[in-house]
């Protein structure tokens, strides 16, 4: 009986250990892909149309979802904020609330989450499919480096697109908040903008938000690329990889957000 229990526990532990080792292995492989992407990114700038094309597919194609979501997020923020602020008689501060929430947190974070769902999955599926149909192998046999030709342009496209999308998200969100606060609720327009301007700092809030979104861009794109590259070359493997992209990207973004925020508030 005791033997059986010990046996079970040791099997459980070794199972956990195996999984941990596999995770660490993948982490290392991901880091190596990241390094290779950096090393071989010369071509994505020399032949910029390669990167341009990927910016189109990751950035421009995400515009609609980003703008629509931002608009609604801004409107909801204004409604909720007003509901609470008017109890304290400071409904003019609604502009500050909407702007700070968007510029500091929601802009970069929600954009990254939407990006992972919209562009990240597309990247993973595309690369997974290229692997499944031997396109990557074919490229390699043609003496063309798939990392320089496929990975690096997508990587830079993601890194460039993310801050643009996040800035758009924040700006459109503020406009959404404005539409609810000023014409709908009737907050004074001058107070709305001036309070906002008095309390949102360009360096501490806006630039930090942009820095966050650049970091998220690196993380989300890299995860999507790695999952695609690492996917087993089967239909099932690619579909699992796509799911993993969303899960891992989301968790990474939220975790990184905490780390970055604590750095930014301390410094």
């Amino acid at each position, binding site marked *: 009986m005791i033997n059986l229990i010990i046996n079970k526990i040791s099997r459980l532990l070794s199972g956990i250990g195996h999984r941990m080792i596999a995770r660490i292995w993948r982490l290392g492989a991901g880091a190596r892909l990241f390094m290779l992407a950096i090393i071989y990114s010369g071509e994505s700038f020399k032949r910029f149309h390669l990167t341009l094309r990927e910016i189109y597919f990751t950035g421009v194609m995400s515009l609609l979802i980003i703008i629509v979501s931002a608009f609604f997020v801004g409107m909801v923020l204004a409604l909720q904020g007003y509901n609470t602020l008017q109890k304290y008689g400071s409904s003019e501060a609604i502009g500050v609330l909407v702007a700070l929430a968007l510029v500091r947190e929601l802009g970069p974070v929600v954009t990254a989450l939407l990006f992972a769902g919209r562009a990240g999955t597309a990247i993973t599926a*595309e690369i997974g*499919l*290229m692997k499944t*149909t*031997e*396109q990557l*192998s*074919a490229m*390699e*046999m*043609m*003496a*063309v*480096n798939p990392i320089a*030709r496929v990975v690096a342009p997508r990587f830079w496209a993601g890194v460039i697109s993310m801050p643009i999308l996040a800035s758009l998200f924040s700006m459109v969100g503020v406009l959404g908040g404005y539409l609810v606060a000023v014409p709908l609720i009737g907050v004074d327009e001058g107070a709305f903008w001036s309070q906002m301007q008095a309390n949102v700092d360009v360096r501490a809030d806006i630039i930090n938000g942009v820095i966050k979104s650049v970091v998220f861009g690196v993380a989300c794109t890299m995860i999507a690329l790695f999952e695609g590259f690492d996917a087993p070359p089967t239909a099932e493997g690619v579909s699992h990889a796509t799911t993993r992209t969303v899960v891992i990207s989301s968790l990474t973004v939220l975790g990184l957000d905490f780390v970055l925020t604590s750095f930014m508030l301390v410094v």
Partner: protein
Amino acid sequence: MTSNIVEIDNLSFGYNGRLLHKGINMVFPKRKVVAIMGGSGSGKTTLLRLIGGQIKPTKGEVRVDGHVVHKQTRDGIYQLRRTMGMLFQHGALFTDLSVFDNVAFPMRELTDLPESMIRDLVLLKLNAVGLRGAHKFMPAELSGGMARRVALARAVALDPNIIMYDEPFAGLDPISMGVICGLIRSLNDALGATSIIVSHDVKETFLIADYVYFVANGEVTAEGTPEDLMQSTLPFVHQFVHGEKDGPVPFHYAAPDYRAQLLG
């Protein structure tokens, strides 16, 4: 310099100690069409990957044009690969590029040719496979046989010395099969290249091959011209060539005694 462009010397390859190939020797003379035949899972495709330098042998070596492939640097392997063309099993066309761009891909990536010359060359290659009229199509709009022909045009885009075919006949209708068959032979002779065909389609392969290697259980079990092999009395070759159900390759996978297992 020998007259063999590719030589495989006592090659062994395997994963985790289990050997897929056990000491294989093969030579591929210049300007010939040489076929490697064998059952599914006998490691034929792996041989092509070893020649292309995508994987490293466990033992022995592959020489391409006198260079030992696995001892090359990354640049050296890329240099060797520029002299090779490969047709993948399902074509492996780039799905996001048009037929024209697919064929132009190796030229744009590896040469500095002006766009006008690339255009002429691409149309020339597409004309050779009879698909000049389809240059605007996307790969998704092509039939299996057409995709294979486009992939063939892409494989010979840079006039390679060695053309490798991975299962060129698999999954094609008889007409397309005949077309591909004729193309392999005519391209080989027109380019003065060496063709290496990996296949298990006996009829088509024997029609165009100058020399055939049979691979089974990680070894070369038989070799010779198609005519010799048709007459071969070796049990395995006989079973393979004539497609018999039972023989040295048994119908039943190794199992304990049926009677004992049922009653067990």
